[in-house]
């Protein structure tokens, strides 16, 4: 086997005319030329590997950056924000000296190729982001989108994804407390597997990713480095540098949750002993990302000896080592005097740890292999000065026709019997049906601090046993609304997550988002993206909840067909005492049901239009964020003062969906009366935003209605918790048994 000579910096300088496979690595011609311009010579193979992964869409946000800036520019004043966008995850002050970090990321493409490992490593990646901030992970959530529920490929992808999330999360001992499962044909070839995590720490324990202080050591710890996820680098290795290598490496990574658990404990112990100057997890782009980010966020340069990286496969080339996405690895910067203690802690947890380099007082990132310099770059040019594109965007020409196709014109049920029939169809449709078959595969209660989990409006975790302080998180995103109007669709996702947090009694504080869209090279998709970001930034400013971080996933499409624009929004809230939370389930017969907010004839993008008419057109519900704020304040006050015993936000499926869920969860029925001024159909199925239904004990009725009256929130008495049927007076009645069968059998019969 003959090896071509090592492509050192010296070699690259001496052989300026060697052609490198920059196109195969995903770089555009002008991007490659910029690399040459930055370096003043052609890059070495290793340098090219680094630039190509760090300048990819995934790592550089080159198409989305110009829009994402709005999250900073329009950020509302918030005392709660301790660390904002740009770090591994944002950090929020939740009081009593506690800080909470949370983030949502996507792992869409890997989960389609290999559902179990793709989803599992998605959980692993987001959890490492949390520990890199110095926080102990306390819970995960998983917003998921799949193709049609009855499509054969959904039966391949969904069970794998669910098992992967459950397998990894359960092994880590993290409760899964929230998320969503949505089916739509637009996700058929491109499921969305988003993963979120929450971590808790004391204020003084926040850590940032930076490498400062010349002489400090760079320590790589965790799993050995193997050939995972280096499809790109292998091109470099096989076609140009060494033809004897296998030409195709898999892009799939396999996770090891037990290794990750050790990594959590070992990292937190090192933090507790204040051994760490800076830290970075290794995710996409592996060591390329960790070294260039750490070095460029610090004050000096960095020198790394690649030979010292522990390998699982000794045949890996330096390019491959730099690009490998092997899971469960972290990189820490440690003062020389503390290295021994750091290594001791790693050894105690059975975690391999190796000093691979040190911080220098120059400003270069230099990487050596077999004693020769193969990388010599300014780390800032790799990590931060990637290309930025102002991609053209244009409102698609079909948007007007779509919005003109008003769902209000669809035939509506004419009799009580028809209403009843459609209610059953709605609550048994895959999107509205109970997801317990899925969520039961996750551990909700491990660690013993879970207060609320699915199917509650938001997940809630107690973080202080003494005081009962807790945090709540909800994730929402409605691709159908966003397709009809991306600006308002994104705001509706925000409003719903915000409302869900408030419905459980917690005060919304901050936002993380995962923006899932099609190809940015399509002006129509880019317009959807620009509109959604603008909507979200405007909405966050109005609600006073800053975006703390998140993730953009582009190129979610099959051929020419993009997914519905799907901004998934996570809202984090705080509750002073989790004992004051409000659950979804009806608690006691005789309690009065109040509908809060205004109900209009709004059916565009509704679940009803999808289930009954397979229709998507018109405009999504109106957004009134001032109303959302008022509603949230009322829900939080009512929860704190014990005025309501259960509450449920109204969203997809409308009031009837909410009442059926509360009734089934509580095992108690409801008698509903259609209020004056509304017809039964609109009352039951409209999806007007800014609404919730609450159950008020009779003794609290006056106090509650007075409060709503004084604050100007419409509150209409619409019924009472009673019996074992859900009855709409004068229209129809359905027994809880019938409803339960319809609501709970759908998913198991399709997927089990």
């Amino acid at each position, binding site marked *: 086997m003959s090896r071509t000579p090592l492509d050192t910096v010296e070699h690259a300088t001496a052989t300026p005319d060697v052609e490198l496979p920059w196109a195969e690595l995903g770089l555009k011609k002008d991007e490659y030329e910029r690399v040459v311009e930055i370096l003043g010579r052609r890059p070495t193979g290793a340098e090219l590997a680094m630039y190509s992964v760090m300048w990819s869409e995934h790592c550089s946000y080159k198409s989305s950056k110009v829009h994402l800036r709005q999250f900073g520019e329009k950020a509302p004043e918030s005392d709660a924000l301790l660390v904002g966008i740009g770090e591994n995850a944002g950090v929020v002050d939740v009081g009593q000296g506690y800080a909470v970090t949370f983030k949502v990321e996507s792992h869409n493409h890997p989960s389609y*190729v*290999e559902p179990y*490992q793709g989803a599992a490593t998605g959980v692993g990646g987001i959890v490492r982001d949390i520990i890199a901030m110095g926080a102990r992970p306390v819970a995960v959530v998983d917003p998921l989108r799949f193709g049609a529920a009855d499509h054969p490929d959904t039966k391949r992808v969904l069970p794998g994804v669910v098992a992967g999330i459950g397998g990894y999360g359960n092994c880590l001992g993290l409760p899964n407390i929230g998320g969503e499962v949505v089916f739509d044909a637009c996700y058929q070839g491109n499921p969305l597997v988003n993963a979120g995590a929450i971590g808790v720490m004391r204020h003084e324990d926040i850590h940032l990713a930076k490498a400062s202080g010349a002489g400090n050591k760079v320590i790589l710890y965790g*799993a050995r480095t*193997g*050939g*995972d996820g280096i499809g790109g680098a292998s091109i470099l290795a096989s076609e140009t540098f060494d033809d004897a290598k296998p030409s195709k*490496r*898999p892009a*799939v*990574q*396999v*996770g*090891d949750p*037990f*290794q990750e658990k050790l990594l959590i404990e070992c990292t937190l112990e090192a933090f507790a002993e204040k051994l760490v100057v800076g830290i970075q997890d290794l995710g996409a782009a592996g060591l390329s990302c960790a070294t260039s980010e750490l070095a460029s966020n610090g004050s000096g340069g960095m020198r790394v000896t690649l030979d010292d990286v522990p390998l*699982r*496969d000794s045949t890996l080339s330096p390019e491959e080592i730099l690009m490998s996405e*092997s*899971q469960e690895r972290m990189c820490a910067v440690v003062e020389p005097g503390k290295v021994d203690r750091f290594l001791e802690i790693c050894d105690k947890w*059975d975690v391999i740890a190796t000093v691979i380099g040190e911080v220098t007082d120059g400003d270069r990132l230099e990487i050596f292999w077999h004693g020769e310099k193969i990388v010599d770059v300014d780390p800032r040019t790799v990590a931060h000065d990637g290309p930025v594109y102002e991609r053209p965007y244009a409102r698609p020409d079909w948007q007007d026709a779509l919005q003109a196709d008003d769902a209000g014109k669809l035939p509506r049920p004419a009799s009580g019997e028809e209403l009843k029939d459609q209610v059953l169809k709605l609550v048994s449709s895959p999107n509205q049906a109970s997801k317990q078959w899925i969520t039961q595969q996750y551990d909700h209660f491990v660690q013993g601090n879970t207060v609320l989990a699915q199917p509650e409006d938001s997940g809630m975790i107690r973080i202080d046993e003494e005081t009962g302080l807790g945090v709540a998180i909800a994730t929402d995103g409605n691709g159908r609304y966003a397709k009809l109007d991306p600006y308002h669709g994104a705001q509706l996702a925000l409003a719903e997550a915000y409302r869900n947090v408030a419905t459980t009694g917690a005060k919304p504080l901050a936002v993380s988002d995962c923006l899932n869209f099609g190809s940015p090279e399509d002006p129509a998709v880019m317009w959807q993206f620009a509109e959604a970001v603008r909507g979200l930034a405007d909405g966050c400013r109005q609600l006073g909840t800053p975006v703390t971080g998140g993730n953009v996933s582009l190129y979610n499409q099959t051929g020419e067909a993009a997914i519905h624009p799907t901004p998934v929004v996570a809202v984090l809230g705080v509750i002073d005492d989790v004992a004051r939370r409000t659950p979804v389930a009806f608690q006691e017969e005789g309690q009065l049901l109040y509908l809060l907010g205004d109900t209009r004839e709004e059916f565009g993008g509704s679940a009803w239009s999808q289930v009954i008419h397979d229709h998507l057109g018109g405009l999504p519900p109106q957004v009134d964020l001032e109303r959302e704020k008022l509603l949230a304040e009322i829900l939080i006050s009512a929860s704190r003062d014990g005025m309501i015993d259960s509450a449920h936000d109204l969203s997809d499926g409308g009031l009837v969906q909410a009442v059926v869920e509360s009734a089934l969860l509580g095992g108690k029925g409801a008698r509903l009366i259609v209020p004056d001024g509304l017809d039964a159909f609109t009352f039951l199925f409209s999806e007007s935003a800014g609404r919730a239904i609450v159950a008020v004990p009779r003794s609290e009725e006056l106090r509650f209605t007075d409060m709503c009256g004084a604050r100007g929130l419409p509150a209409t008495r619409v019924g009472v918790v009673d019996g074992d049927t859900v009855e709409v007076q004068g229209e129809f009645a359905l027994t809880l048994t019938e409803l339960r069968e319809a609501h709970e059998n759908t998913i198991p019969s399709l997927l089990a």
Partner: protein
Amino acid sequence: MARVVVDVMLKPEILDPQGQAVQRALPRLGFDGISDVRQGKRFELEVDGPLDEAALARIHDLAESFLANTVIEDFTVRVEEAAEVAEAAK
């Protein structure tokens, strides 16, 4: 009756947490000198009828589509030497 054995192994570049766990346990138990362990699965298929090319092709198909996850695993198909099997079948 013939026996066909399908061996399924994780591809060499894929992380094998189970194999690693075994390898880490070995020195603790006093077994030295093992530098790597990879763990796989073995399927023994009893085939009805003649084991001709068509039958083998079918087994190859089922191994590829069902027994192995070819995104992360390799597999091999081989016919178990018939003597013992035939003896047992009598």
